[in-house]
């Protein structure tokens, strides 16, 4: 699972109000190179929740993203490179996503988060 996916997922347990963002517990992170597409990044910048994204990247052990960002930074290649790397090249391979409200852990195995709910959570 990559951080773009993480940025659009919310805890889905019944009764949870603030299920976003899921906290990342990383046991194993993989890096895979992807060609950079700056038009795509510019479009995504508008849609990403930045704070959650930065937090998630730190959870994955990547600390190069600035706390705050605005669209003027998209003119900088260095910024784009970092944004690209964190958004599309880091994969959470083993670990868990944790509901911020209840602490319920959704395990991630072989890169696939298991978001299935127990009967009493639906």
């Amino acid at each position, binding site marked *: 699972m990559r951080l773009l996916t993480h940025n*659009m997922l919310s805890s889905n347990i019944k009764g949870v109000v603030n299920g976003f963002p899921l906290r990342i517990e990383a046991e194993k992170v993989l890096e895979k190179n992807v060609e950079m597409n700056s038009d795509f990044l510019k479009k995504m910048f508008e849609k*990403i929740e930045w704070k959650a994204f930065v937090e998630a990247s730190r959870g994955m052990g990547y600390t190069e993203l600035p706390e705050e960002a605005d669209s003027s930074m998209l003119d900088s290649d260095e910024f784009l490179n970092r944004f690209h790397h964190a958004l599309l090249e880091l994969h959470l391979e083993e670990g868990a996503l944790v509901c911020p409200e209840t602490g319920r852990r959704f395990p991630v195995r072989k890169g696939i988060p298991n978001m299935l*709910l127990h009967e009493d959570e639906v």
Partner: protein
Amino acid sequence: MKLKELEGHLGSLDQFPNPKIELEQYPTGPHIASRMLFLAENSYDDVSNKVVADFGCGCGTLGIAAALLNAEHVLSIDVDPESLEIASLNAEELELDMDFIQSNIMDLRWRGPVVDTVIMNPPFGTRKKGADLEFLSAAMKVASQAVYSLHKTSTRDHVKRAALRDFNARSAEVLCELRYDVPKLYKFHKKKEVDIAVDLWRFEPASHQS
């Protein structure tokens, strides 16, 4: 990528070794799947450089087709872990970076208008009544650009009404009618192959909010 080449790649994918009846597990054949995604890309520009989600991905066919046509990010979701494992191996085999999630489509909660296009071949609802429209309802909430889906031709009016009236679609259009050979996977199918008419739909969601 040419249509023939796309179809060839899709034909090489591993499919459900032990299909589960209650989940309506049968693959979209390479012929239909390649045309579905080719049309989405070449007539509507809904695939390349986009974020695409595959609902009920099974062994991955539709999402893989999107990735082969240069979708920037593909997220494929299924409730069944065995299918997901095969799907992820299929993607790896073709050296595609894709994301997979195990979840019931009905239970996922989404943030923001990140997904552009949803592609799916949902259960027709023959085992669990209404499953087709439940999938459509969920897809219409997630996609900001378009939803592509297959539904039995016999349900055409019903699907159109639900899309426009209940799910707020801006448009609901049948792009083509197809013959779908559902192989005899299940004992209750009497004939060797059950050939049914299905529609390929394209829906546009109302301007996105969430």
